């Protein structure tokens, strides 16, 4: 930001408990103006913030993945029309394309131009997903990037990179880990990390105690 004209955030002595940053003050001022113009309601902003902090997160996507692992017909529908298939589980707000990892094929999602990401299923993106490092490198040296994430795939495995350049959002369907026969949908969902649905990790193996 090129804001240099305010230093109020560094003043002491008024009612704020600690100095407020210029950014925070600027955002409060923007919200105040828009509330005054009846364009924004603060309780609506509160509700959206809490929705992303509490309700909308990777547990949603994990549920979709676990269902696909257990139900081959659901998996087929999910791969054919992701948007319709997640509606069956009560999720939406996204035009979804699901890409499946399988023997010899690994998928990995990036948005080189901004930060496109399937919020409804895995929440707001982590800082690294929006970072210049990931955005610049994922398309050009995916194998090096994946190794930094601890995932070292042999050259025989094709890595398909999906650069989310339009309004479709991509979700990776990770491979079901071995040794998970008989696990419930909830237990399976517990193995599905956010990163495995972005494609920078694989699903976790089951803990021995889970059997």
């Amino acid at each position, binding site marked *: *930001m090129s804001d240099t004209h305010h230093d109020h955030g560094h003043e002491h002595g008024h009612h704020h408990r600690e100095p407020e940053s210029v*950014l925070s003050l*600027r955002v409060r001022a923007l919200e105040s*103006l828009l509330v005054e113009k009846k364009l924004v309601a603060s309780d609506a*902003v509160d509700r959206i913030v809490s929705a992303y*902090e509490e309700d909308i997160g990777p547990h949603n996507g994990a549920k979709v993945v676990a269902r696909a692992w257990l139900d081959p017909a659901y998996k087929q529908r999910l791969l054919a029309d992701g948007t319709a298939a997640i509606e069956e589980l009560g999720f939406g707000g996204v035009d979804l394309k699901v890409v499946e990892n399988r023997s010899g094929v690994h998928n990995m999602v990036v948005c080189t131009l901004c930060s496109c990401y399937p919020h409804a299923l895995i929440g707001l993106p982590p800082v690294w997903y929006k970072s210049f490092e990931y955005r610049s490198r994922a398309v*050009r040296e995916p194998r090096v990037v994946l190794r930094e994430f601890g995932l070292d795939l042999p050259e025989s495995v*094709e890595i398909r990179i999906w650069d989310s350049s339009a*309004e479709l959002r991509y979700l990776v369907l990770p491979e079901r880990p071995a040794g998970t026969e008989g696990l419930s949908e909830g237990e399976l969902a517990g193995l599905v990390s956010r990163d495995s649905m972005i494609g920078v990790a694989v699903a976790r193996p089951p803990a021995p105690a889970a059997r």
Partner: protein
Amino acid sequence: MNGIHDMGGMHGFGRVDREENEPVFHAPWEGRVLGISRACSAQHLFNIDESRHGIERMAPVDYLAASYYERWLDRTVRLLVEKGVITREELDRRMAQLAGGGDPAPPHRDPKLLDRMLRATKERTHFRQPGPPPRFAAGDRVFTRTDAPEGHTRLPRYARGKYGVIDAVHGTFIFPDTNAHGQGEQSHALYSVRFDANDLWGASAEPCSPVHLDLWERYLEPAGAAPGRSTS
């Protein structure tokens, strides 16, 4: 535009840093910026393409120095000023007022706005709109245009002037290049296009790592059946 935001393939940024147990927001103001921005969308003050282009137009040095939600704040203020909703002077004055204590804005409740904002997180998107039938089919070879438009586009630099293959036909979608500039939705065919890593990065390509981009038909030209790339 050939902006700083168009980062695919750039060198020099280093390792990807990750934060363990990262919070959804790193400061309360980040959440406010997200919520305010969502409210502005729900009020149709700007569309998604104007919003992306608003960030792209940040001065490159500012873009690189700003955090993610600082870029959102910059964009939101920029667009609201351009659209005449607020002025920068008004914002500065309000900052000074708030810094002095108290908030002159009377509380405002709008259950219908909240409802629209919540529904946007759950309902089908509106980006698919009717348009002319697609010109290409899965398997067709295409060549991406080399244009460097000054305005908004979703064809990144690293994929311009390249050969690719249509992987899937997605249907017809609102065209960002016009919708970002008040030139209408001009919905038309969107494709998933697969690019061989060698066609994008030449000798420095990693093995077996094709890149897929979702590209509108106006970014594409037919490339014929044969490879042909040795002569072009």
